[in-house]
């Protein structure tokens, strides 16, 4: 990759990488650090991206995911990244945006990353599987559990305004 190609890649994907890190960590500072690490590693070792293995966007989001999990492990915020028994509780927020943010960030990291990549970054199941280094079946299971947990967490918002969910609460 030439310097101009690297800058073009940065311009095209910086927002997706930052957004993903922001939703995963909930911290602007951590998100900026993660995005910086992701692009610096691409600048230092551009050959690490193999176009035959998928899109650059999916590759960068996978790198951001690895950085985010590394932080979680260092900070010991989660003892187990995948908690199959995790059961979400209804979120207690007045504002729907805060409620959605709290519900997503309460998910165990592996469920959260699969959900963010699918719902917010529009990656296919195969792309998510490649980004998170697992099988498509595992991604499907994580997505299923994540959606079930979110339904439980956000039930109060839906039950009070079932017709207005799509039109702003």
């Amino acid at each position: 990759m030439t310097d101009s190609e690297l800058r073009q890649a940065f311009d095209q994907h910086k927002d997706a990488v930052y957004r993903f890190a922001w939703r995963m960590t909930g911290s602007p500072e951590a998100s900026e650090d993660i995005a910086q690490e992701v692009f610096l590693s691409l600048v230092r070792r551009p050959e690490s991206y193999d176009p035959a293995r998928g899109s650059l966007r999916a590759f960068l989001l996978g790198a951001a995911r690895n950085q985010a999990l590394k932080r979680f492990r260092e900070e010991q915020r989660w003892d187990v990244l995948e908690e199959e028994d995790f059961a979400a509780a209804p979120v207690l927020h007045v504002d729907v945006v805060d409620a959605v943010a709290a519900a997503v960030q309460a998910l165990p990291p592996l469920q959260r990353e699969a959900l963010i990549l699918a719902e917010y970054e529009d990656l296919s199941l195969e792309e998510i599987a490649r980004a998170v280094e697992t099988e498509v079946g595992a991604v499907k299971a994580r997505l299923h559990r994540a959606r079930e947990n979110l339904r439980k967490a956000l039930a109060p918002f839906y039950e009070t305004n079932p017709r207005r969910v799509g039109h702003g609460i």
Partner: protein
Amino acid sequence: MEFNDQKLKELLQKWEAPPAPRELFFRVFPTPPWWRWLWTGSIRVPVPVGLAALVVLGVVWFWNREPVSVPQGSVSLADFHPVDQLEPRIIRGVNYEH
């Protein structure tokens, strides 16, 4: 009504993330100190501009060049004296072996 995937998706889309901050660019592509440009920088000049600049430089040089020094005044032969007596010697050859 059922709280299905579509309804959940609509609810999730209400949580928007901010774009990447501008500072991120400078953290990934740091700007080198300005003086480094003096060693490593380059300038792209369009050919017409470069040619025009060369012509201007040529004209400036032509008009400001040092004039050729010409001896002041006229040359006088008043103090010129021809040689009184020529004594030509003809050397026919030199034998360097002896």
